[in-house]
């Protein structure tokens, strides 16, 4: 759990796009990792959890919506931002219903994406604090 800097996992099957994004985001002080598929994204999450995931929707294998469902099941406190060239009302709706933080359309302005990540991280921090308080409260009852 990182107080100052969010850890962000980017998942996209377009490797050129992914690499550019990773480069530009790390220049802006974001702690980045990349995965080329939904499956790889889940494997990386298992190894170590990221605060935020930025993920494509249309990917071969496990698509973004399926992966989102799995992430929200296993790591409900991780915020997921969908970033896609697939402008579809239904997919956006499904993603938001599943608890995506936002559904952004490519091409995205890099600063706008950065702000989204910061906003999502703000939410993560509040949730973390709430849990910490709860744990402390539970502990003080025991003692």
């Amino acid at each position, binding site marked *: 759990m990182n107080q100052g800097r969010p850890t962000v996992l980017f998942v996209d099957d377009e490797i050129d796009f992914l690499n550019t994004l990773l480069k530009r985001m790390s220049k802006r002080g974001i702690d980045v990792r990349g995965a080329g598929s939904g499956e790889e994204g889940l494997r990386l999450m298992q190894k170590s959890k990221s605060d935020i995931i930025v993920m494509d929707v*249309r990917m071969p294998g496990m698509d973004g919506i399926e992966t989102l469902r799995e992430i929200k099941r296993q790591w409900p406190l991780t915020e997921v931002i969908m970033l896609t060239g697939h*402008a579809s*009302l239904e997919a956006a709706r499904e993603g938001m219903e599943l608890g995506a933080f936002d*559904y952004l359309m490519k*091409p995205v302005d890099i600063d706008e994406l950065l702000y989204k990540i910061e906003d999502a991280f703000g*939410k993560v921090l509040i949730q973390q604090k*709430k*849990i910490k*308080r*709860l744990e402390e409260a539970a502990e003080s009852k025991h003692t």
Partner: protein
Amino acid sequence: MGFFNRIQNYFSSTKEGPLPSDAEALRLDFKERYNNFKLLISANNKALEIMADIERTLKGDKTFGMAYIKARCTAVSVNVFRMIRKMERLAPGKYEALPERYNAIQNEIGSILSESRTVRDDRLIIPLTDIHVELSDIVGGKMANLGELKNRIGMNVPDGFSITVAAYDLFLKDNDLQTEIDRRIQSATLENMENLVALSAEIRQLIVQGKMPSVLANEINEAVRQLSEKSDQPIYLALRSSALGEDASGASFAGQYHSILNVSTENIFSAYKEVLSSKYGVPALTYRLNRGFRDEDIAMSVACLCMVDAVSGGVAYTCNPVYPSDQSIFINAAWGLPKSVVDGSISSDLFVVSRTPEVNIIRSDIVHKERKFVCYPEEGVCRIDLTGEDTAAMPSLTPSQILKLAELALKIEAYYGSPQDIEWALSNETSAEFHILQCRPMQQMNPEDNPGRETIHLPDMPETAMASGGITASPGSASGPAYIAEKAADILGFPDNAVLFVRQALPQWAPLLGRAAAVVTEQGGFAGHLANVAREFSVPALFSLPGMLEKVETGMTVTVDADGLCVHHGRIESLLTNRKASHFLMLDSPVHRMLQRVSRHIVPLNLLDPDSPDFRPRMCTTLHDITRFIHEKSVQEMFNFGMNHHFPEKTAKQLYYKVPMQWWILNLDDGFHAEVKGKYVKIDNIASVPMLALWEGIIAVPWEGPPPIDGKGLLSVMFQATANPHLNTGTRSKYAERNYFMISRQYCSLSSRLGFHFSILETSVSERAAENYISFRFKGGAADQDRRTRRVRFLGELLAEFGFRSDIQSDHLHARLEGVDAGVITARLKMIGYLILHTRQLDMIMSKPAMVLRYHDKFRNDIEKIMNS
């Protein structure tokens, strides 16, 4: 699971009023609420921004495609959805009708977006002998016309078959291409030509690499076999696009798609895919974008026709294509295949035939034809240079052939009842015969735009002339910097509004015509594709000026007078006087109509007055209504939550500025420097950047009239205003009764009531310039409707002068400014502060125009002084 329940219980227990030990939890609860509110506000801003963008786009002066519409609809829906979710967090269970309304609106939008062509006929292949004009939605207009000519008028059309629209759909579906294509189009930034070229190449590659569905391959092979049986020699085919939508609303689609000539039967599949892929060629992509055609409406069927090895070929128009009031028949002809005439690559002979009293050749312009295109015996088409003086200089049609062709053309025109554009070929056999290869209605130019001037006349050479002569391919005159394009890559550097100079009038230059002031070529005639496109886009075009490129240099200012057949040095104003404003080609296009239809469920605002009984979720009929409703309620919820909590630190504080003021402040998060225990907060404890800016504007200029009742200046006005008994009607919530600030360091909302005027200001200012905004709503009372309207108009105009977007509906004003630097925002906030206080002065003067003007100037001066302080 149990863990989260515990969290919930823990927090819900605080609702009874906090025990001291729970203060920290409550503080956290406030923080979370404020965070939800912040996200709600940011979604609201985003949604409004998209709506404003949709409105701008609807004006029709910029190009957009379906990708734009889908992306905007999706983005606006997502943001409204986020607002609904956040509202649910701020006031659980309170506005349950919202999701219902949202779903209903979404469904409307979704069903418009997903409308698609319905193919009623699922045949993959249809032989030409079975084709007629009623089949145009399955074989395309071009092929349907050929079937009509062959089967119903008995014209000589080469035998063949259509690979239908159903086949195209099958090909895309089998290869799962459409979604992938849509995705790539949406992800690309198409403003720049380089990206467009790259996108085109990618998509064409996807199509060319697609697999032929086996059922389609079998049917094509069978059709080829049946054709071969009718012939005693191996057959060769011409594959031509025959796309849907080509005949829509005066659009030519000239020269966008590939035709592949002289294809041997074993290569038919790859030729088929190549023709399909030309739907995503740069000319076609640009054209659809510029003319507003939906990608999915343009399905490609392919016409496969037996190749005619032509001795000569060309195009016949049944009236003057440039000046339609001239009813003569215009025939362009060249040696060999008509290809060279159609693609504008060489200059061709022109024969003009009058129709009354009988067909009669009234002009023959025979040019030196440097080369011709003929079929290779094995496959493909080759270019042969015509060296023999005789052949090159000889007319490509004899007088009797010309008259025969003119009669054929008139017969076709009579059948269709409108002027026609006909591609023809004269076959190479002993009994030379005309074959009709293509036929379509002529693009009709508005005769009023082009008062009939002679097409071809030799002007006197004025002093300014750098070249003269040639052919008017599209009428008009224009001036701009010259730009010479020689190779394909040169399209990348073409500046807007330049004059394009090229050697040959090839279709590959068409993508530039949407941005060109005029186009000049060394070769090519008015029958070519480029000429068609130039006329369609109303770009003056002067063709066939030999040696032109040696006389001009890129960057030089020139004036092209296409009617006067002259290119001039410099800018000649006298020639430009008749230049008509370029019209908006997007207006009324299929894509534009689609955006208009979806926007009706998004943009209009019906929920105007929060005090009206109709201001409730059930009355929301557009996404804008929902955002307006939620925004209003979210501010109130934030306010009420703060007011109702018995948590001293978080209750509203009264502003103390020299004396206690009638202004209350609710700190949402980090709006104070230090915690305030008592009843008052001093101005120097305020940390909210926007509130401080606003306050500076409020106190900057003392109130000077009408004289306040007790004559004590600014402070007394403030007391008096809030003590106005008319306001205490008992029907309003507390929120509306007083002047309330809700603040954090970056955020400020102010709901104020001074006199009879009610205004709500909301603003956020931070280093995120893209998210900075000011929203100012004003509704003035205590006057007749007419004066109220004039008052909001006065304010709206003043705000517009300082960069706000003002929207006035009846006597409500809503002004917005967004996406600017913090410095601009704080300066404008001072302006608003000033206006909030001083608008009352307008009450008495609104019926006197001279006074209005004087006050406008005074306000302007004051505002500029304040903003610069």
